[in-house]
């Protein structure tokens, strides 16, 4: 394919990518103004916290983090996929230009931090200084999130969490109904099988991922069988929050992120649970 069919960055000619249309990025940038962008960048980066300062003033630009990154390794060691390059193309440029960047630049940042980084923290394990590169990528994600420039699929999950506190738009009725239905269904084969809801003082509270009661029903059944076979005194929470996947964390949507974690712990405290078991 000829280069003209690809996206070439204005600022960084080395950054060449396949087009990847996404309503969440392409449409949302139309509502941005330079003032809004500048204000957001300055608000998020704020008074330069210790962690930002430490990274900016220590990074010696040695490129030793690159071999940590699965994106770098699986793209023929293309330098624009290296963790340090992702900082250079996003936050360094924002700071250099004092937040005066345009909507197109924000879109490019969103593409880099959301679709070319898994925030896995491996680069910090490879950096000789142990710099928290993931924290920096998270800040850029936060800037993009506050500006509303997020891939549509991720934004949808975030909205689901903000509305229903789970990522699959499952109401509490549906959640309880699904659990009781599963107990009945499997109970035909195993007479002692129970899915205890809101059992106070149980030892273990199981917190599934959102997709399990929605599209992976057999997971619920299998977990119940496992718990029965192992003789575990277990329960599931009745009221929200029960979904342990925390998608808003990946967007750095701090408000929703905290509501979920708080809800999980409140359920555990209410039922006096000893252990929380999460699906992963």
């Amino acid at each position, binding site marked *: 394919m000829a280069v003209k069919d690809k996206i070439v960055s204005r600022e960084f000619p080395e950054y060449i990518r396949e087009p990847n249309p996404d309503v969440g990025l392409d449409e949302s940038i139309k509502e941005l103004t330079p003032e809004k962008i500048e204000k957001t960048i300055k608000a998020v980066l704020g008074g330069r916290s*210790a962690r930002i300062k430490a990274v900016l003033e220590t990074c*010696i630009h040695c*490129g030793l983090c690159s071999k940590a990154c699965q994106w770098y390794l699986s793209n023929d060691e293309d330098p624009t996929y290296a963790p340090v390059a992702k900082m250079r193309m996003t936050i360094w440029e924002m700071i250099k230009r004092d937040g005066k960047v345009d909507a197109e630049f924000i879109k490019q940042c969103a593409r880099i931090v959301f679709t070319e980084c898994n925030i896995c923290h491996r680069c910090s*394990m*490879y*950096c000789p200084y*142990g*710099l928290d590169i993931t924290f920096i990528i998270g800040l850029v994600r936060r800037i993009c999130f506050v500006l509303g420039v997020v891939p549509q699929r991720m934004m949808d999950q975030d909205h689901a969490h903000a509305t229903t506190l789970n990522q699959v738009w499952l109401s509490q009725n549906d959640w309880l109904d699904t659990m009781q239905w599963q107990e009945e269904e499997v109970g035909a084969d195993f007479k002692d099988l129970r899915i205890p809801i809101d059992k106070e003082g149980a030892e273990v509270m199981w917190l599934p991922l959102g997709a399990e009661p929605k599209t992976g029903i057999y997971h619920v059944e299998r977990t119940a069988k496992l718990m029965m076979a192992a003789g575990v005194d277990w329960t599931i929470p009745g009221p929200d929050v029960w979904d342990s996947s925390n998608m808003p964390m990946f967007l750095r949507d701090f408000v929703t992120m905290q509501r979920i974690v708080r809800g999980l712990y409140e359920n555990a405290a209410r039922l006096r649970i000893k252990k929380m078991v999460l699906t992963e």
Partner: protein
Amino acid sequence: MIDFIKDPSFYTLVRGPLVWIAFLIFAGGSVYKIRELYLLAKGEKAVLPFIDGKATLRSILHWLIPFASRNWRIRWPVTILTFVFHICLVVTPLFLLAHNVLLNESWGITWFSLPEGVADIMTLLVIVSCIAFLMRRMFAPEVKFVSFPTDYLILAISFFPFLTGYMAYHQWLLPYKAMVILHMLFGEIMLMTIPFTRLGHMFYFFMTRSWMGSQFALWHSKDW
């Protein structure tokens, strides 16, 4: 130019007040920068409570010993280069016979001195490593992409004191006295710029490692 360098008043400045200024700026600046970062971290609430002394020590040790971390092993040429460079860079000036003689003449104190031949080779190693770093910065794609003029500048700052020192010892190019004056000047520039450039990784290394080492210990993982 050469007359200016050899001028006695310039010599007096470089060997007298400027030495004091350089050391004061280096010490004061370092304390200031460390304190600044510490106070910022203290204000952030989420940093200092998570610092774990044992994890800090383990993390720092694994990265100060060659090949003790995974990245030092898979990047072995860079590892050899960087350890040779940093060890020679720190050890040579501290234990150089000529520096010790100056100290002895000024304050009457002396400590261990390296044999002159060894010091000569170590200085040469710093010079060669600097050139190797320059080559890496210019030709390794992942480094080239993130190289700025300041990166070349800080490399030059650490290169010239050693180059002029080496040339003065061998009495090349310029008369000995002129070269020594240049050597003192570059050394003073280096001392003064350490706290205020990214050469400050000299002390920030321990602080950033402390944070990441503690974080990874919290996640029951290793950061080396």
